C-alpha cells in the first residue's frame, strides 16, 4: 500500500499537488472545508492575461482525481505529533497518521466592509471584484438601470496598514484591468474609471493588457486613492478622489463601484499553524524555511506549503509551487529518518 500524505485545502494548489503526489506513488488525502473543490478558481469567470475561461483550467484537474481520497465539507479537528508522524483528526471522525502534511490553505478575499468609507454593505451599488465575476459568469448584466459610469477601486485592503493588510496582493491590478476590459467589451458605451496608486503589471502580457485597456477600450486610469463614497437619494454614488497627476480633487457621479479586494490570510490559518507549531508572519501568512531557497518547506519536519498560504500568488505560480511541493515531499519521505 502506498504512503498517505495529508493535503489541507482543495483549491488549485491542493488539487495540483495531490495529483503530482499520486503520480509519484503516494495516496493524497485532500481536505476541503467548502462543499466543492476548486477554491476561488471555481468562482472566477475568466483569467488574466488572455481571458481564458477559468473552468478550462479547473475542469481537467477535477476530472483527474483518481487515486486521490478527497473529503469536502470537512475541517481539521486536531493535529498531533507522534514520533516522526503527524496524527490528523478530521471533523468527519476519520483520522490519518502521515509523515507529511501539505498546507495549501489559500487566502480569503479581504472583507470590503472593513473599508467602510467605500460603503460596501451600505450602498447597494458598491460591489466586490468577486461579485462582478459572479455576474460575468452568470452572463447577466448588472441589475441596475442605466449604468453609464462605473469605477474600479484598486488596492482595497492591500498596502493598507490601517486595514491591517500591509502587503500587496499582487493580482488585483491586472484583475481590475482585465475586468475593466471585459466590462467595456460587453458595454462599450459605459465610461470606466480605475483608481490606482500605482499599477503593478509585473507578468508577461500584463502591460499589453493595460495598454489595450487604454487604447482600445478607453478606460480612464486615475492615479489617486478614493477617499470616500456617498450616495444620493436615487442610490447613485458620488466618488471622491484626488487625481495626483493633475493635483486636483475629483468628485465623480457613478452608477456602480467595484472594489478590488485583495488577498488576506485564510480564516483558520493561524489556528492550523498553532496545531503544528509553526510560525505565522506579521502579515498572517505562513512562513517558509527560506522564502527564496525553500518556499514550499516549513521550518518544521514534515510540513510543506503550496500556493497562497504563504502570500499572494497568481494561478500559474500556485500550480508551479504545487508541483514543487510534491517533489519536496517526495524527497523528504524518501530520505532516511533524521531524528
Amino acid at each position, binding site marked *: 500500500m502506498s504512503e498517505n500524505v495529508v493535503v489541507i485545502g482543495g483549491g488549485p494548489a491542493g488539487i495540483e499537488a495531490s495529483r503530482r503526489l499520486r503520480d509519484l506513488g503516494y495516496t493524497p488525502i485532500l481536505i476541503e472545508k467548502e462543499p466543492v473543490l476548486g477554491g476561488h478558481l471555481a468562482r472566477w469567470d475568466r483569467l488574466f492575461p488572455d481571458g481564458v475561461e477559468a473552468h478550462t483550467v479547473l475542469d481537467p484537474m477535477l476530472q483527474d482525481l483518481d487515486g486521490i481520497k478527497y473529503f469536502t465539507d470537512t475541517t481539521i479537528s486536531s493535529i498531533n505529533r507522534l514520533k516522526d508522524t503527524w496524527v490528523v483528526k478530521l471533523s468527519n471522525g476519520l483520522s490519518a497518521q502521515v509523515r507529511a502534511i501539505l498546507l495549501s490553505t489559500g487566502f480569503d478575499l479581504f472583507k470590503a466592509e472593513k473599508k467602510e468609507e467605500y460603503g460596501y*454593505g451600505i450602498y447597494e451599488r458598491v460591489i466586490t471584484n468577486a461579485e462582478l465575476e459572479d455576474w460575468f459568469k452568470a452572463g447577466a448584466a448588472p441589475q441596475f438601470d442605466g449604468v453609464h459610469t462605473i469605477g474600479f477601486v484598486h488596492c482595497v485592503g492591500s498596502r493598507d496598514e490601517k486595514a491591517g493588510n500591509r502587503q500587496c496582493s499582487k493580482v488585483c491590478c491586472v484583475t481590475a484591468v482585465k475586468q475593466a476590459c471585459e466590462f467595456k467589451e460587453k458595454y462599450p458605451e459605459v465610461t470606466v474609471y480605475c483608481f490606482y496608486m500605482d499599477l503593478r503589471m509585473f507578468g508577461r502580457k500584463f502591460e499589453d493588457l493595460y495598454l489595450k485597456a487604454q487604447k482600445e477600450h478607453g478606460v480612464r486610469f486615475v492615479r489617486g486613492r478614493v477617499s*470616500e463614497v456617498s450616495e444620493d437619494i436615487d442610490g447613485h454614488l458620488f466618488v471622491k478622489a484626488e487625481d495626483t497627476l493633475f493635483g486636483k480633487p475629483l468628485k465623480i457621479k457613478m452608477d456602480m463601484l467595484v472594489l478590488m479586494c485583495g488577498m488576506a490570510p485564510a480564516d483558520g490559518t493561524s489556528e492550523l499553524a498553532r496545531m503544528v507549531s509553526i510560525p505565522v508572519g506579521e502579515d498572517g501568512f505562513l512562513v517558509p524555511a527560506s522564502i527564496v531557497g525553500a518556499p514550499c518547506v516549513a521550518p518544521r519536519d514534515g510540513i510543506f506549503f503550496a500556493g497562497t498560504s504563504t502570500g499572494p500568488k497568481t494561478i500559474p505560480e500556485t500550480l508551479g509551487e504545487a508541483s514543487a511541493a510534491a517533489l519536496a515531499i517526495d524527497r523528504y519521505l524518501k530520505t532516511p529518518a533524521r531524528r
Partner: protein
Amino acid sequence: MKERILAAYDPFVLPFVFGITFVIGYCLLALFKVLVQLSPADRRKFALSLITPSAILKNLRDLFCDCLLHVKLWKRNKVLGYMHSSIAFGWFMIIVIGHIETVLYIPERLHKLYYPIFFRFFMEEQKQTLQGSFFFFLMDFFLLIILSGITLAIIKRFRSRIVGMRRTTKLTLTDLIGLYSLWAIFPLRWIAEGFTAGVAGGSFMTIPINWILHNFMSKPENITVAWWAYSLALGTFMTVLPFTRYMHIPAEILLIPMRNAGLPVRHTRKGFTLAMLYSCPSCGVCIDACPMGVQKKNVQDATVYMVRNLKRRNQQRSLEIAEKCLMCGKCASLCQVQMDACGIRLAYRTAQEKKNNRLPADFSYLNAIAPQQVGEEKVLYYAGCMSSLTPVISRSVQQVLQAAGVPFELMDRDGSICCGRPLLLAGRRDEAQQLIEKNRQLIEKSGAQILLVSCAICYRIFKEQYELIGVEVVHYTEYFNRLIAAGRLSLKNSHETLVYHDPCDLGRGCGIYDAPRQALAAVGQLVPALKEREESVCCGGSVGSLTLRYEDREPITRGSIENLTANNPEQIVTACPLCLKTFGRFAPVPVRDFAEMLVLNLETNKNDTK
C-alpha cells in the same frame, strides 16, 4: 506644666531647624518663580481670584478636602484614602495641637520654630490636670492614627496589589530617602516621647513605652539620643523634600487656588505648569489608568514619567511621551491633583511644531465653500470627515431626523471642512484656527440655531474652541435623547444586550455620559462594561497620538474590547466614528453606531440599513 529646660534650646533641634528653614526658603523661591513666569493677564486673574470671597471659600474647602482629608482618594479607594488622610490630617493636627499647647503654656516661646514640635522635650509635668491629659490623649491619638497610616504605606510599598494598585511608580533615590525618612519620623517620635513621658507626661501610647523600658529610659543621655534621631529624621525629610515627590505637599497649596482661578496651561514647564509638575505626588494612578499600559514597554510613557522627565529637562524623552499619548484624558480624570496631562502634552507639541520647518498649509480652497441655509427648525447637521468615512453614521443620523420629522440641512453637502481638532492635537494651532474661522462663518451665516454633530472629536472642539454666538452645539446622542423624551421618535425595544462605549472626547472630554445611555435603554438592555464613564478605556484609534504605530494600537483596541465585553453583550454601541472603525476590526460581536442602533429599532422603519 512648666519648662524643664530653661535655655529652651538643645543642639538636637538643629537638623530640624535646618530642614524647615531650607524647605520654607525653597518653597518661597519656587512660589516666586511660578508667579513671575505667569503671563501678566494670568497673574492678574490669579490675584483677583485670591480676593474674591466665593473663590476664597472654595479654595479653603478644596485645600481642606484635598490636601488634608483626601476626599477624592477616599471615593476611589478607601484603603489609600485612609492611608493618605491619616498621615496628612494626623500630622497636621499634631502640629496644630503642638502650637495650641505652646500658646496655652509657654506663649513666649512661640517664635521658636522648633518649640511646638519638640514641646514634650522642653516641658515637665508637675501634676496631672484634666486639660493636660486631654492634650496628651489627643497627641497620642493622632500619633496612633499616623502610625496606622505609615503601616499601610509600608505594606503598600511591598505589596501594592493589597491596596488595589496593579503597578506603582518606580521611585528615584531621593524619593526613597524621603520615603524612608518619612516612615522613620513617627516611630522615632513615639520612642522619643516615650523617653520623656516619665517627666513630661504622656498618654496611652507613650506612657506604656516608658513603663516597659523604665530603667533604660530614665537615663538623660539616652533621652537625647532618641530626640536627636527624631530631629534628624525630620531634618532629612525636609531637606530632601523639594527634590522628591513629597514636594506635592507644599505645592498643592499653591496649585489648588491656581486651578480654581481657571488658569490655562500655556507652557511646557513654566508658570502654572511648573506648579503642576511640583504637585505630582508620583502616586502612579496614571500608570494603571493609561490604556497603552497593556504593553509593558509603554509603562514608561505614563504621565508620572513625563512629569519626571520634564522636571529633569530631558527634552527628547518628554517629546516622545508627549507625541505618543492618545490624549484620552483618563490619567487626568483619575489624577488626585488633577494634573492637566493632555494640556501639558499639547503645549509640548505646539512648542515643537514651531521648531518644525513645514511648508505653509494651503487653505485657498476654503474660499469656494458657501454656507447652506437651514430650514424652520434651524438644525444644521455637520457630519465631519470621520462621519463621511463611516457613511452608516451620516445616513443613520439623517434617517433618524427624517423619522422624527426634523427639517435639517447638511452643512458639508458640498464637501466637508475639517473641524480642526486633529491639527490642534498635532500642535498646529495656527492652521487649526483657519479652519475654525471658516467653519464658524459657515455656521453663523447659515441661520442655524442648533448645530448637530455626530462625531465626538468634532463636538469637543466645537464646544471648546468655537465660541459660536446664538448657536447651540449638540451632540447627536443628546439631541436624539431629547427627541425620544419629547415623544418624536417611536422606538421598539429589541431586548438585546448592549454595552455602551464612552468615547474619550465625548465622555471625559465633554462630560456626556447619561444621554446616550438613556436613549439606548429605549432600544435594548444595557449591560455595564468593566470600566466605564470616567474610566472608559480608549479604543486605541485616537487621532491624539502622533507616533503610535498600528501594531501597537491593536493591543490597546483588544484590551478595550475585553473591557467592554466582560458581561457578554450581544452588541457594542459607540457614539464616535473613530471608535466604530477601530473596534470594527477586532470585535467579536457587532459594533454599531448610536444612530444606527436607533434606526434599526425605529418603529416605523421597515428597511434594514444593511
